[in-house]
């Protein structure tokens, strides 16, 4: 069966989910052996790949066509035909993307062709400036730093991505006797994993089958915007809403920010910052006390808490109108297929408890493992945040973490050490640029793949610059350190063992490469085993009002455009209007109208936000939907949101908290405040 027919067949079988464009696959895939000069102009090739813009790992297909690169060789302009990436679409066969892709994924091609992309290795010189260097010099410099450090003094910081590359990293670290890779404590979903462990006894991030649900209550998880896998959940959301005959699923969303999910929700429950826990408890209490739901599957401690809870007090504490909480609980109770999503797009001190209770509500609703309910994670996720209290590294590998997503306490570590980075970073002392994700052949396991494995095909465009695959770089470093045991496995094929129905690994791999991955539903049903020792107590009563020095709450969030901040330099994303403020090229500090009025602040005024940890300046956007007393700032704008966050972790997890007390001062006008639309409301003018 050739590739195009394979696509078609699968496409028909999976209910017409196949997009038209992918059906146009030519039989001939450009073999790498064909010199680029011989690519036929105007003929398109679609090659499968994986999006690496966020940990979700959507399967993509990439349109490759001939282009001409103008190079200056010996002062003469030469036109060189190359295979260039033209467009990225979702891979219809991929269970995560299902042929769909978000804006950040679309913009990945601009990462490949970004004008500021490093074109070779760099070393920080005595003057503190990164300057071009040869690979040998750069590798020497990195090896020196590693040699000077003891094994305990080497830290490998990586984003929460698994696949062939991280396997190579692990084998390198192991071979050299270094500690396993750690995350920076941001965007590795430790809160969600801890909550799932408590509520269900599962390792990983649960899958919420919202596509079959008829009522969804999301507590703290901005699953359509900056959460685990926006495309995956957007598809499911679309199906939930209008994909079924005569059933329209409804969504209530509780969060202290009017996020993308709150936009799309039928009702937004504007919880006070940290009020998600009380809200989840209130809903649980209502289910038990008022709707007579069975608490048998709950951990006894939680059941007791819920039975004794004072609903009115909890609602008050949550910041949400009691009638709305009651409505949410009522609809959960009466829905045929209700589901509660618990998460923490904005991590707070009590987020683990909030997410755990929210998840545990599914136990009351009895939907674990059922259609429209919660399913066990497809794969375990065992990354852990670096323990900044203990670590004193002198050499740090920085891998795949955007500068904007590095919390202050990790920055302190980076400042004190020699930083070996694979992607451009302000912290880098040695930059060993990796190929772009589109240039390197790798296997990536998506964070939420519902029981599938996914491969990225071999590279199909040649590296544009003098970059090297970091697997090879690690291997070279290992050689320099004299640790031949640490040389990582070269070909990614070795990750796979031959599967049933294939003659050998090679045949299997080529099959997986053709369709962009290999997926197999994990049939084993994992039942829930809640942890009786979980954070099942009642919500801590709010302490005395915060000291008047910091009367507001500041929260940092991952924006739709920039994600963890890593997308902030891509032109398409930069010029994308912020959904809330319509601001382009930057992210504003969102402030509620009352607080703004009190400070005399208008859109575009420059505000200084001050917390115990630091202060930043940002342009103000008076967001009509901002929760009173809460100011929010996205990651990746010119203002460094994380610089305000004190080095604290959520209770019960290593995750950096994204919310803290703060105060705001007006410092003047911004030079520019580039809104695509300056109009917030569509109101008919009154006659005067």
């Amino acid at each position: 069966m050739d590739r195009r027919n394979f696509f078609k067949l699968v496409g028909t079988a999976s209910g017409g989910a196949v997009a038209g464009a992918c059906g146009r696959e030519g039989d001939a895939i450009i073999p790498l052996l064909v010199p680029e000069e011989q690519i036929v102009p105007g003929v398109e090739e679609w090659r499968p790949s994986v999006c690496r813009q966020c940990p979700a790992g959507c399967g993509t297909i990439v349109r490759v066509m001939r282009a001409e690169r103008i190079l200056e060789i010996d002062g003469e302009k030469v036109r060189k035909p190359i295979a260039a990436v033209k467009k990225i679409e979702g891979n219809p066969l991929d269970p995560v993307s299902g042929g769909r892709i978000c804006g950040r994924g679309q913009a990945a091609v601009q990462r490949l062709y970004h004008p500021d992309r490093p074109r070779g290795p760099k070393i920080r010189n005595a003057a503190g400036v990164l300057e071009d260097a040869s690979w040998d010099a750069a590798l020497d410099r990195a090896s020196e730093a590693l040699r000077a450090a003891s094994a305990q003094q080497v830290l490998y910081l990586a984003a929460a991505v698994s696949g062939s590359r991280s396997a190579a990293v692990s084998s390198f670290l192991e071979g050299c006797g270094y500690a396993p890779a750690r995350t920076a404590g941001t965007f590795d979903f430790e809160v969600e994993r801890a909550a799932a462990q408590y509520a269900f006894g599962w390792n990983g991030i649960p899958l919420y089958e919202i596509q079959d649900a008829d009522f969804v209550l999301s507590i703290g998880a901005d699953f359509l915007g900056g959460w685990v896998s926006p495309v995956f959940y957007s598809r499911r959301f679309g199906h939930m809403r209008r994909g079924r005959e005569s059933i329209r699923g409804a969504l209530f969303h509780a969060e202290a920010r009017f996020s993308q999910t709150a936009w799309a929700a039928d009702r937004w429950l504007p919880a006070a910052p940290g009020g998600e826990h009380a809200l989840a408890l209130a809903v649980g209490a209502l289910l038990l006390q008022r709707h007579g739901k069975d608490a048998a599957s709950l951990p006894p401690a939680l059941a007791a808490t819920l039975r004794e809870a004072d609903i009115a007090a909890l609602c008050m504490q949550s910041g949400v109108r009691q009638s709305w909480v009651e409505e949410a609980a009522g609809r959960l109770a009466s829905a045929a297929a209700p589901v509660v999503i618990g998460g923490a797009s904005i991590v707070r001190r009590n987020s683990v408890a909030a997410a755990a209770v929210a998840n545990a509500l599914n136990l009351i609703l009895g939907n674990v493992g059922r259609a429209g309910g919660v399913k066990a994670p497809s794969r375990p996720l065992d990354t852990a945040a670096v323990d900044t209290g203990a670590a004193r590294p002198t050499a740090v590998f920085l891998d795949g973490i955007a500068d904007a997503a590095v919390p202050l306490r990790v920055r302190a570590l980076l400042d004190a050490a020699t930083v070996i980075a694979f992607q451009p970073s302000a912290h880098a002392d040695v930059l060993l640029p990796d190929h772009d994700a589109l240039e390197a052949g790798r296997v990536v396991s998506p964070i939420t793949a519902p029981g599938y494995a996914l491969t990225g095909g071999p590279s199909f465009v040649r590296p544009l610059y003098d970059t090297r695959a970091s697997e090879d770089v690690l291997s070279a470093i290992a050689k320099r350190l004299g640790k031949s045991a640490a040389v990582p496995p070269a070909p990614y094929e070795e990750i796979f063992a031959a599967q049933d129905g294939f003659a050998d690994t090679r045949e299997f791999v080529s099959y997986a490469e053709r369709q962009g991955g290999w997926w197999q539903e994990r049939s084993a049903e994992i039942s829930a085993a809640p942890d009786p020792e979980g954070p099942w107590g009642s919500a801590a009563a709010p302490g005395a009002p915060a000291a008047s020095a910091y009367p507001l709450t500041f929260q940092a969030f991952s924006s739709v455009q920039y994600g963890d901040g890593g997308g902030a330099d891509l032109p398409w994303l930069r010029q994308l209007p912020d959904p809330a403020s319509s601001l382009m090229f930057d992210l504003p500090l969102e402030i509620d109208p009352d607080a703004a009025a009190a400070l005399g602040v208008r859109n575009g005024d420059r505000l200084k936000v001050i917390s115990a940890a630091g202060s930043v300046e940002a342009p103000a956007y008076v967001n009509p939907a901002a929760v009173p007393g809460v100011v929010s700032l996205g990651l990746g704008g010119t203002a460094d949101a994380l610089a305000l966050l004190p080095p604290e972790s959520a209770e019960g997890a290593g995750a950096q908290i994204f919310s803290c007390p703060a105060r705001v001062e007006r410092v003047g006008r911004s030079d520019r405040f580039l809104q695509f639309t300056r109009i917030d409301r569509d109101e008919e003018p009154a006659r005067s």
Partner: protein
Amino acid sequence: MTEKKHPQWAMAIDLDRCTGCEGCVVACHAENNVPLTSPDEAERGRMKHWIRIDRYYEGTFPDIRVKYRPVMCQQCDDAPCEPVCPVYATYQNEEGLNVQVYNRCVGTRYCANNCPYTVRYFNYEDPFWPEPLELQHNPDVSIRPGGVMEKCTFCLQRIQRGKLESKEENRELADGDIQPACVQGCPAEAMAFGDIADPESKVSRWAGSGRSTQLLDELGTKPRVFYLEKGA
């Protein structure tokens, strides 16, 4: 001899599915070589988004909602932009598309003034992409020089490719064979594109839904984009 019937392209957008994520906006930029705009130019209001999300807040906290809607060229049947062009740079083709002929445009900008949806964008200067971003250019779409009006084409180049391929393979175009970039990328699957003359097509079914409305339909422009309003 029977005359071959031309497909009548139309789009339907289910606002109940739409999450306002702006994936379509980026998809459109990636597909159509839409020029980049510098902050200086953006400050003057010259940002180009062939498709954009119009958003309005409604109500006050805490009972606040936001009304949002992707807006692109509505490909009106009775398009106000067309007759005012002195040089026929924009006209209605037999497939119901409101075609913009970049080469013919002299830049009076009258069409843009007369578009009630404000979806036409003018090239104030020759576009520029810093090297090597231009490698990404879609060779199927021309680069518009300065002084020329541009707008959403329903991805005419994809329609053309789709038609050619079906012809090559000697088969009829099937519903869903052709998808503009925004429709194909939409994560919430909130957009449908196809032949409105075919009652079986997805877009026909969506457009026939009770929730279907057209933007500013009181102006009589007969848009080809249908919005399925939110509703319980």
